[in-house]
């Protein structure tokens, strides 16, 4: 079963991505609105709005990845089984990549919507802070030596607990909101299929990446353990 997991998810992701790209670029309506005078609203984004399909999807899975990393880190500290730590580490690695996508696409959106490449508005700020915690985790893993797994697990758990505080701290300002009045709920009907297919494809992508990282870490560990046994038995030197 697990042997097939990565190829299956990767293929699903590829298909999903192809379908959603087609939908996004050829089928979904352009976003624009009219103001009272029946002229085109200055806040219409037209083609730039399409970045939203990729930006929001990555954001969903960024936050999920952080949650996964935090919970597996808890599991690792309790059970001390390196397999939990593998999942945490892989999830963070992928989260760093997804986070970078969120920040870059968010920046492009900001340029289109507000004519600045960066704004300290709530969601972007929150994503940046989260991304910094994740990058910190990667640095700790890389440079803390043999105890890196323990220290990084601590950081992931503290980071996860910090997320609600970061959320509360950034408040709600100019970013397209979430919840009942949010972008997701008030999407035009024509946009929904493309959006949700995009979300699902990037979930498959996330899973493919994380599972493949975990498998590769485990394979490395097995090789090392075999080598040790060989050295112990005197078969290797």
């Amino acid at each position, binding site marked *: 079963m697990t042997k097939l997991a990565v190829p299956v998810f990767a293929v699903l992701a590829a298909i999903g991505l192809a379908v959603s790209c087609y939908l996004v670029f050829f089928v979904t309506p352009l976003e624009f609105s009219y103001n009272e005078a029946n002229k085109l609203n200055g806040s219409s984004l037209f083609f730039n709005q399409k970045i939203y399909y990729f930006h929001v999807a990555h954001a969903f899975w960024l936050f999920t990845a952080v949650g996964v990393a935090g919970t597996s880190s808890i599991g690792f500290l309790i059970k001390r089984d390196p397999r939990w730590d593998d999942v945490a580490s892989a999830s963070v690695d992928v989260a760093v990549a997804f986070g970078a996508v969120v920040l870059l696409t968010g920046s492009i959106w900001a340029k289109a919507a507000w004519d600045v490449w960066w704004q300290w508005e709530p969601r972007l700020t929150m994503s940046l*802070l989260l991304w910094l915690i994740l990058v910190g985790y990667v640095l700790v893993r890389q440079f803390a*030596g043999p*105890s890196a797994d323990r*220290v990084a*697990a601590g950081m992931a758990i*503290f*980071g996860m607990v910090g997320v609600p*505080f970061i959320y509360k*701290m950034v408040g709600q300002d100019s970013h397209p909101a979430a919840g009942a009045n949010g972008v997701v709920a008030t999407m035009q009907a024509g946009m929904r299929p493309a959006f949700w297919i995009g979300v699902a494809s990037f979930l498959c992508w996330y899973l493919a990446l994380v599972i493949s990282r975990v498998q590769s870490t485990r394979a490395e560990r097995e090789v090392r353990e075999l080598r040790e046994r060989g050295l112990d038995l005197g078969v290797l030197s």
Partner: protein
Amino acid sequence: MTLLRHAARVAWKDLRIELRSREILYTMAFFGALLVVVFSFAFPQDARAVRGSVPGMLWVAIAFTGTIGLGRAFDRERENDTMRALLLAPVPRLAVFLGKAASTAVLVLAVAAVCTPLLALFLGAPLFRFPVPIVLIVVLGAIGISVVGSVFAATLLKVRSRDVLLPVILYPLLVPLFVAGTKCTASLVAEIPNFDAAWYWIQFLGIYDAAFLVLSIWIFESLVIE
């Protein structure tokens, strides 16, 4: 409770050493004062701009001096490996954590007590217009830095690259603390003070401190024992 008594013993040991040599206190306070001077030159001097930048300056000073103080306080336990002796004692390891966090908080507060009047003096900022909320937010900030900082400073004690990793780990995690501190201070020094906002941030920081204290209590032994 014996747990608290042992924690007090550990904290008092640190404070007694510090009172004797005053090494960390002097160096932290001097560093804080230097920061204030540097800020005074780096930022504009007109009253409106000052009101805007003083909260940030105060909390940057607290952030930097706090991290240095943390590092030094735990470095002391590296000389002669006394941390090992503390962890080996039959007291709950939690007591060691609470003791170290308490003594670090006292140090951070002592330095904040130096930096705040200095900022008020050099930059003419009305930091003491409403003493109670300012003291409250600074105390909560000191507690937060000490709690989260002590967990990681203790964890990193024997870890490679610990000097640079401590800020790398701490600063992102402490951002909500610094933002709360800055926003609260800002709403207190503004021309028209906003007490609702100040109170909101004090509560925010109180909950933050409580949440991380509970987490630290659960997780300390797990992280510190190799």
